[in-house]
């Protein structure tokens, strides 16, 4: 996936932080969008698309914290890759954040421009791969949708290596019909054997 298509979102309540980050990333040719709070970000950004969020953990006393925004993204199963920024912190915070699925964590005082760029680039690569995976899945889903309901049933039995006779008995139909379904499935999904079919289905969450 082309990295230049991906957007980097910067969510920070401090204007200088937003501006400087935007300047830095723009000077490297990234697409940047700025948000001064978690609320506006969640409301306005397209969080269903792939991309990278640079998220400040502390944003004003009454506003949503970075953690809350992150939790909301996870709740909505957003594919966005999250890069946390923190004013100060320690190992425990870092472990906690990454454990919960954040891509990386940077401490403001200790982070130079190069490090920020590096981390952003890595996050973009991750986002691109997530985007690729998303595209592949969409493709597989389309293929899967070409199957008839009966073929889907047969495929679900087939992936476990169940023999034709057993499938026929289970689905109460003739062995020959099952045989036909198997051939159709092989052609439509372009899988050679039950093991390949099983991998295809598992990878694409079918």
């Amino acid at each position, binding site marked *: 996936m082309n990295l230049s298509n991906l957007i980097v979102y910067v969510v920070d309540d401090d204007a*200088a*932080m937003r*501006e*400087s980050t935007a*300047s830095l990333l723009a*000077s*490297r040719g990234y697409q940047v969008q700025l948000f001064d709070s978690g609320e506006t970000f969640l409301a306005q950004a397209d969080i269903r698309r792939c991309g990278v969020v640079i998220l400040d953990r*502390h944003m004003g006393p009454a506003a949503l914290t970075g953690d809350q925004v992150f939790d909301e993204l996870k709740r909505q199963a957003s594919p966005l890759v999250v890069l946390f920024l923190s004013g100060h912190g320690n190992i425990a915070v870092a472990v906690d954040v990454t454990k919960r699925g954040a891509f990386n964590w940077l401490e*403001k*005082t200790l982070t130079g421009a190069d490090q920020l760029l590096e981390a952003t680039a890595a996050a973009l690569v991750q986002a691109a791969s997530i985007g690729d995976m998303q595209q592949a899945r969409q493709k597989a889903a389309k293929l899967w949708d070409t199957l008839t309901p009966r073929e889907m049933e047969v495929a679900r039995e087939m992936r476990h290596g169940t023999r034709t006779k057993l499938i026929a008995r289970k689905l109460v139909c003739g062995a020959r019909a099952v045989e036909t379904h198997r051939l159709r499935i092989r052609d439509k999904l372009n899988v050679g054997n039950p093991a390949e079919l099983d991998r295809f289905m598992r990878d694409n969450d079918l």
Partner: protein
Amino acid sequence: MLNPTAGPSGAPVPTSARLSLTWIVVLLAMVLLVAWAGQWSARRESAFQADALRRSIDVYALGLRGEAAKFVYLPFTVAQHPDVIAALASPGDTAMRQRANRYLEDVNRRAGSDALYVLDTRGNTLIASNWNQPLTFVGQNYGNRPYFIDAVSGGSGHFYGIGRTTGEPGLFLSAPLRSGTSIVGVVAVKVSLLEIQQTWGKVRDPVMLADARGIFFLGSVPSWMYQSTRAVDATERARIAQHATYGPRDNFPVLPWDVERTEAEPGYLLATKVDGIARRFMALDESLPNLGWTLTVMADYGPVTAARNRTWTVGALIAGLLLLGTMYWRLRERRYAEQRVARQELELRVEDRTRELGQAHSFRKAMEDSLLVGMRARDLKGKILYVNPAFCEMTGYRADELVGKSPPYIYWHPDDLKKHRRESDAVLAGNAAPTGFESRLRHRDGHDVYTMVYTAPLIDHNGEHSGWMSSVVDISEQKMAELRQRKDSEKLQHMQRLASLGELAATLAHELGQPLMALNNFAGAAKANASQGRLALLAGNLDDVAAQAKRAGDIVRSTQVWARPHLRGAESCDLNDIVTSVLAMVGAEIRHHQVRVSTRLDLAQPCVSGVRILLEQVLVNLVLNSLQAMQVVAVELRELEISTDRQDDTVRISVADRGPGVAADVMARVFDPYFTTKPEGTGLGLNICRRIVVENHQGALEFENRPDGGAVFVLVLKSAQ
């Protein structure tokens, strides 16, 4: 038994009803007893009387018989005399008759009889003792008289009647005069019974003699004479007339007697009138068969009635006395019972009270003994009435060494005697400060004891003010701590500064993080722009870099000032400007607390020499305190007034609120370090403010409560001029 109070179903009789029933029964029994006693006494008396009657009737009968018997032989004797026989045999012989007359006269005189006379067989009187008297019997015929009839037929006669010749009653006794075997005459003697009647008349009670027909012919009651106890029929009346027994009388009315007989008794009761007076008698009859008479003796029944009445009276008296006695006894018993119950109750109450008192006492004692606060009670003149163990412990003297003493007390500190005297007088005059006062005592072993004394009036059980009760709190520890703290003041301040520095370090990291990272970012952007020749962007990046660097610098500078304020030089500060910017800083807080703000910035030349950021800090602190103080009052009352003004060569910022003000008991400690009234306060805010004002600006931080509510804090600074 008739029981009017018992219910138809036989329900138990109520106690009071049963009691009155008992009383009625007892009363009835007593009445019966008394009545019986009366009757008994009457019977006894009447028995006595009956006895007496029997005795007297015997006497009377004996007398009567004697009188009759005395003369009964006289006619026989006279009939034997030869002269009499001779005279009768020859009635014509006058001499013989004269001799017989004389003889009879002589005998009659000697015998004491009334008359003695001899009759022939036809009833003519031939010889009589009263031959020479005018009313002589000689020549009279008495042939119709019963005594003649009886004698002439051979028996002896006796007859009572009224003399035909004399008209006087008498007893006639007769005997036949025999010559050989034939009866030739009758000798009769008349005996007067008037003497006996006279004797009876002397007796108080009536004695009456009745003939066989029941007619009284002799007796002591004249009005009853010739009256009958029973009806006399015509035949009898005829015979009486024939015999001329009672002279010419032929009517014998029945006496108006009311007779009452009892079977067993020989006597009987009779009620009648004697001389117009109603009387009751007990009577006894005795028949005299020889004479054919009946003797009736009576006794007045009055004594019997009197005896009964007397017994009744005495009995009633005794019964009454008994009743009264019983009632009195019962009353007394009841009173005793009540008194006993009352006494027991009283004893119980006393016991309870004693126990309660004991408990209260032991409770109080335990409480007093466990108190760490010294207690001292004094009378109105200052004499010590009581001290508790804590007070003794505090002063080192025993209770018996203190009680009864008057000022100056032994534990007064010798250096503070005047102060002690003044405070003691104030307390005794009732002018003690309600917040208490500090007092330095001298312990017995010589060390000083710092105390806080609170005094309240002592009210006795009558509600009268009898003295003063003081609680004495040992504050030596605090006092020592204060002294130590004052000594170590410099050190403490330094420590505090270090502490604040440490606190600041943490926030500093956060504060500085932002500009530093922004700086980095801008630098990174600048580098990229420079390498790609985008000069306009590069210039902007560099401006940004400079701005962020300044921002970081400002933060660091303010922190340096904070940590070491005295190192920073003063600048010229506009107080009005400071107020405006502080209000902007705490705007959010003000809105949050819903407080109205009014400012009066009157300073024409509002400048002072000072460290702006520190003065801002002080003002922020004061404003925040005011906002918090007003949390407890109604929203419409919350008003914050900030004003600046000038006085002589000082300028002042006043921060006035409408909160509850500063409580009297904390006034002295408002600026003490670590003293706070807020649950989460550190107790350093006002302390630091004052240090900033006093130490860094040679000014003053003052406060007072506003007369119409709230507190005002005033920051006083030297004017720049």
